[in-house]
Every structure is written in C-alpha cells, then in structure tokens.
C-alpha cells in the first residue's frame, strides 16, 4: 500500500493544489490584468485624452481651408482696376522628380512658360521634398499642365491653391491702387483698405474615404467671408489718357516727374489722379522705389503763381479790390530782405487786377495783397483747404505746409504769389475747384460711397463736406480773370485752350527746394490749374453734357522751361 499511495496523491495535491489556492491565484492574475487595463485607461482618458482623440479623428479626416476671395477695386463704371482670379501654385517633390528631371523640366517650361534651367535645378534639389515650381498660375493652366504631366507618366508634381491678384490695366492708376506682395498688400489702396478687401478665410473639416467625402460622416463647415469690393471715383479711360498725356509731357520737357489731378467740379470726386513716372502693378519690383507711390498726395510742392488765384479771389471777396482796380507796378519792389521781381523785365507799368493775373505779375499781387489785414490771407488759405490733409484714403499723404504769417511780412508777400508755402496736387485742385464751383469748396474724395481705412477713418463721397470760402460774385470775377490767362492775345498760357470750351486757368512756375541742400537749387515746379467749361460751371453747360471738371498739373522740371509766370 505505501509505495502505491504517494504516486496517486502527488499529481492531485502538489500539481494543481487545492481549489481555494487555484481560485486565489486565478483571481490574482485577473486582478493584475485588470489593473493593467485600468492603468492604460487612466493613461488614455486621464492624461491628455485630447491628443488621442485628435489622432483618432485625423484618420481619414480632411481639413480644407476655404480661402476668402479678395474684393475687387473698381473704377466709377465698375471696370476692375484690381481683381482676384483663382490661381494655383505648382509644387514638386524633388525626391520623386529628380529621376526624370530634364524631361519634366522641358515639359513644364513649355507648358507654363518657365525658365528651363531654373526649373531643372529646382526639380533636382537634393534633400528637399518641397519646391515651388511656379506661383500664381491661372488655375486652368496649372491643372491642365499637371494633368497632362501625370498622363505622360511624370510623378511628384502637384497643384495647390494660390490666388492671383490681377491688375488688368497694368500701370493705369497703379499709383493709387498699389500692389500685393507674396502674401500681404504692400502699397496703395490695397494696403489702406486691407481689412475690407481681404475678408475672412473659412475652413471645412470632413471625413474622406478613397478621395470622396463619406456621407453622414463628421463634417463641419465655417464658410469663408469674401472681401468687399472697393469702388473708386476714378474713370479708367480718363485716368489712362491723363497718364499718357502726362508722361508724354514729361518726356518732351525732359522733366523729372509730374502729377495731374482731374476733379469733378460739383461733387469733388477725383476722376483721374496720374503720376509719372509710375509703375506696372503686375510687376512692381521692376520700377524704382520712388516711382511706386502716389506723388500727387505725398509730394508737396510750392504752387507758385497758381496760388495768386486764391490770394486775389480772397481780396475780391473782402471787397478790397475789383477786377478793374488799377495798380502801378514798378519794375522792382524792395521789401524787407530782398527785392521782388517779375518774370518779365519792365519799368513802371499800369495794370488792372485782371492784367496782374493775365501777366502773372508778382509785384502786382504783392501790392494788392498789402490790403489784407494781418493774418487774413492765412485764414483764407486754410479755408481753401491748404495745409490740411485731404484724407481721401491714400497712405502717406503730406499735409504740406502753410506757414503762419507771424514769421514776417516778407513771408506773407511770398505766400501771396505762391512761394514759401507748399501744397499737394489734390489740395491745389480742390482749392482752385472752389472758384469753379462758385466759391464753395467741396472736399475731394476718391472712394465712391464710403469705406473705412485700416486706421478707422471713414472716407468717401458719403463724407463729402462743403463750405463757402468766397462769394459767388468773387468766384465769377476770378473765373473771368482766369479766362484771360488762356486768351491768346493777352494771357501767358494760350496753349491750354480747348477749342469749343471756355477754359479758365492759371500757370505757375515755382523755384523748387532740392532735397540735397534744403534750398532753392535751380530746379522748378511748373504747374497749372484750370477748369472748363468756365461759363457757369456749377450747372451743366447748355450745349455740352460733359461734366465740368477742374484739373491741376504739376511737373518737376530740371530747368526753367519758359519764362512764364
């Protein structure tokens, strides 16, 4: 019995143990496994659950940025000065393209008008997985090219959205509209009204399977808010014509630069604002830096004799003189520090006030301006809008300067004939427009309706203000005197005549302060301001339905062009 028992008991007792022990061991193992699970659960849910949720969501989830379309900049007739077009960038993965680089480069160079060698270099860039091959390509052209390349068996090139800002008119109004850099606007209205034009990008998230959106899958859309169009008062055709005439004038007179502003007499809307030399907004970097701004607002110049219009109309308004007031004008007038001369040598001559304007006599103007009470001229000039920003919505406007008369009698004398004060072309156009508009100054505007700049200033025709500066009679007398400037018999500017129109205007030649020495350096600003039709411009002419308009032109000349004014 003894030898047989132990073999029977051992397998039962020592190998499996009692049921209780087995149960305990089993529970222990289960508890250990469960605690591992619990630990993992705490790790997943307790510590940073969002990153795991995001990873789960990222599987098959697509996030697309919905790009807001940039608002157009339009002229007064709705023709685009700047518009946005769907564009694509063509990008390449050099790791995949380097094998067939020469063939692909040849293909892309012909399809997308690229340079073969630089494309080849990009396609072969070692160690890179992303290269821009072409940017701002019209969408159809880019997708056609890439599809054709894929059909030919090329791999590793793709398209991505890249909106194009197109300036269909090229250099027309480029000085005002400005231009875009790679991502942000760099100048002009594009930059001033960036918030309005840009809009807000939206986004869309949805699940994708095999390139198609999974129906009933998770999907959220935040729609893009497109930018709002900016309507300007510019007339594209007139702006173009003004620019061409201005640049021709500058070439012919071998001048440095010039600006011309055309303004609607009654509403103050700027119809054209040309600068020369200017730049092509589609290729802004090809132009020199100083050609890319709006000179008509940023450059202040001394108006010269054009300013006599403001001096004399103020005098007439005060009742101190009439167009028929006789003045004895000596050949030279000694004032405090230096004598004042006229542009033409003469002895003692007798001129009426109208003759002073027609002949543009400095001495005559100074003698007439002596009738002002101290400070009166300056307050008139301020009411004409000189020395204050016009705030039409263009960046970098110079307020110019209208110095206080306290600095001496000589200065007031010089101001009376347009030196020792500066204006910008839009200010001058608005001031002369006051005469054209029957003595009421209309504040100039460049934006149709109203728009808010990024600085929070609201500008536009809705904020136009008007105030009377001189009486209607004073304005009419002045306009008649200005017509004689154009008169071929007595005036100095018969070339400004337009057959069939009564034109009133005034020329000016002012010595110019050079930037190098800060003194009059022998260069001149030649300017002209005038309006047509001069017969009752405040109401439409009887036989012409043309809009009455005022123009101011200023040209920076290297030398005194002709002894006028």
């Amino acid at each position, binding site marked *: 019995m003894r030898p047989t028992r132990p073999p029977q008991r051992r397998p039962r007792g020592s190998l499996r143990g009692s049921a209780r022990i087995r149960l305990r061991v089993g529970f222990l193992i289960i508890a250990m496994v469960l605690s591992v699970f619990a630990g993992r659960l705490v790790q997943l849910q307790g510590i940073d659950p969002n990153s795991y949720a995001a990873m789960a969501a990222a599987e098959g989830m697509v996030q697309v940025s919905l790009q807001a379309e940039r608002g157009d900049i339009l002229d007064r007739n709705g023709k685009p000065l700047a518009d946005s077009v769907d564009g694509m960038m063509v990008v390449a993965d050099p790791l995949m393209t380097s094998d067939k680089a020469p063939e692909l480069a040849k293909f892309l160079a012909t399809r997308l008008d690229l340079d073969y060698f630089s494309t080849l270099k990009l396609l072969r860039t070692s160690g890179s997985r992303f290269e821009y091959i072409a940017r701002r390509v019209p969408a159809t052209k880019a997708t056609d090219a890439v599809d054709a390349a894929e059909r030919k068996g090329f791999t590793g090139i793709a398209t991505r959205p890249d909106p194009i800002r197109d300036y269909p008119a090229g250099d027309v109004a480029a000085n005002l509209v400005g231009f875009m850099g790679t991502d942000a606007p760099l100048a002009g209205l594009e930059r001033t009204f960036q918030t309005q034009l840009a809009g807000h990008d939206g986004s869309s998230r949805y699940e994708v399977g095999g390139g198609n959106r999974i129906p009933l899958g998770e999907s959220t859309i935040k729609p893009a808010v497109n930018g709002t169009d900016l309507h300007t008062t510019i007339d594209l055709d007139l702006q173009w014509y003004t620019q061409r005439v201005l640049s021709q004038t500058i070439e012919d007179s071998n001048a440095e630069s010039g600006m011309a502003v055309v303004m609607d007499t009654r509403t103050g809307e700027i119809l054209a604002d040309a600068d020369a030399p200017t730049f092509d907004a589609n290729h802004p970097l090809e132009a020199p830096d100083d050609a890319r701004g709006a000179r008509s607002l940023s450059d202040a110049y001394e108006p010269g004799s054009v300013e006599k219009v403001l001096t004399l109309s103020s005098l007439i308004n005060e009742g101190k003189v009439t167009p028929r007031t006789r003045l004895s004008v000596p050949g030279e007038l000694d004032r405090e520090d230096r004598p004042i001369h006229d542009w033409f040598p003469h002895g003692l001559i007798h001129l009426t006030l109208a003759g002073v304007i027609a002949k543009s006599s400095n001495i005559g103007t100074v003698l007439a301006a002596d009738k002002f009470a101290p400070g009166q001229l300056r307050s008139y000039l301020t009411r004409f809008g000189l020395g204050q920003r016009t705030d039409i919505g263009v960046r970098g406007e110079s307020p110019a300067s209208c110095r206080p008369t306290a600095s001496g009698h000589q200065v007031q004398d010089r101001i009376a004939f347009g030196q020792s004060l500066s204006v910008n072309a839009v200010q001058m156009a608005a001031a002369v427009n006051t005469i054209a508009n029957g003595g009421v100054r209309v504040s100039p505007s460049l934006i149709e309706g109203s728009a808010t700049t990024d600085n929070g200033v609201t500008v536009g025709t809705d904020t136009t203000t008007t105030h009377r500066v001189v009486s209607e009679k004073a304005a009419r007398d002045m306009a008649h005197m200005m017509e004689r400037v154009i008169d071929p018999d007595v005036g100095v500017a018969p070339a400004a005549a337009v*057959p069939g129109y009564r034109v009133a205007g005034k020329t000016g030649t002012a010595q110019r302060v050079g930037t190098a020495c800060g003194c009059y350096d022998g260069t001149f600003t030649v300017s002209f301001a005038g309006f047509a039709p001069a017969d009752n411009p405040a109401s439409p002419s009887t036989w012409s339905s043309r809009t009455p308009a005022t123009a101011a032109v200023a040209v920076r000349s290297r030398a005194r062009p002709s002894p006028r004014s």
Partner: protein
Amino acid sequence: MSSPAVQFRSRMPRIAEAAVERARLTVVPRRRVRAARVPFVTLVSLVLLGGVIGLLLFNTSMQQASFATTSLEGQASTLSAREQTLRMELDVLRNPQHVAEQARRMGMVTAGSPAFLKLSDGKILGTATPPDPTQNVRIVPPAPAKPPVLNPAPTYVDPPADPSGHSSGHSSGHSSGQASGLVPGASSDGAGHGDGTKNHTGHNNPTSN
C-alpha cells in the same frame, strides 16, 4: 388527484351540492394553439432582409451621390476657374491701353474739336477742325535705354590695305587653306543652306585665329 375532491364533496352539505357541482374545476387538457410559424418567420426575415438590403441600397446611393458630388464639385471649380481666366483675358482686351493700340494700328487718330449744331435756330457753334495725326498722344512709352553691356559702342576696324599684302602677312599655309575653303564655298555651293554655313565658317575662322 381526484381523491381530495371526493373527500371534499363527501363533507359538503347537500344543499350546496349544486353550486359545488357548478364550481367544480376540472383539469382540461392543455390546448396548444400552434400559430402558423412560417408566415411570421417569413415576415420577419423579409423585414430584416428588406431593411438590410434597403440600408445597403441607401448607403450605396449615398456613396454614389458622394462620388457625383466630388466630380461635380471638381467640374464646378474647373469651370469657375475657366470663367475667371476668360474674364481676366477679357479685362486685358478691354484695357484702354490695348484698345488704343489696336485703334492706332487700324489707323484711327485722336479726334479734333467738333462743331455743335443748334437745332433750335440752326446755328453752328465752334469750328470743326480735322484731326491732326501728328498731334496724337503717344500711347506707347519709349523703349528704355539699353544698358551699355547690351548696347556696346560700335568698333571700327580699318580694312587691310590690299589683298596681296594680307596674304603675305600671314605666312602659314593655314590662312591660305581658309581662303581656298572660303572662296569655293561662297561661290560654287548652289544650295542656300550650304552657302550660309560656308559663309559662317568663313567668318568665324579668322576671328578665332
């Protein structure tokens, strides 16, 4: 089972016998009504099958719609891109500069001043002047001046005094070989292309020497 009932009855008064008789419960054989199982199963399986197939079809049609959406969206974006490209081309075409250049090419000139006819009294206001093509506004800016690299000053070389002196100056047979190669090439080769290449090599060789 019947024995307790028998005992119960024996203890009952006679008067209640009828009522007891009426109230007696007997065990009836359980009547199992077997509803027809087949129609129900068929119905359920049909509903199930219909549901599954319907869901499948619905899902498929949704997928189909999704495919269609994707392709139509692609088509729409292609078409809108096409439209925008065309609009861009149109804007370029109606750009005043382009219109003016076309007009000039067609021989149009800047208009002279018109005269106005008053219908009320037949008076003519102003004088009509014919346009003067020389007064046209220049619409094309002058070409920019070439940098000196691209526009070198011409170099003037005095021709050799006489051909005999030239051949004697170059003593080697090399120059005579060139001369013999140049002359027949320029004179004898009838084909234009052969002529050109010969001339070209003839010009190149002396400069490379």
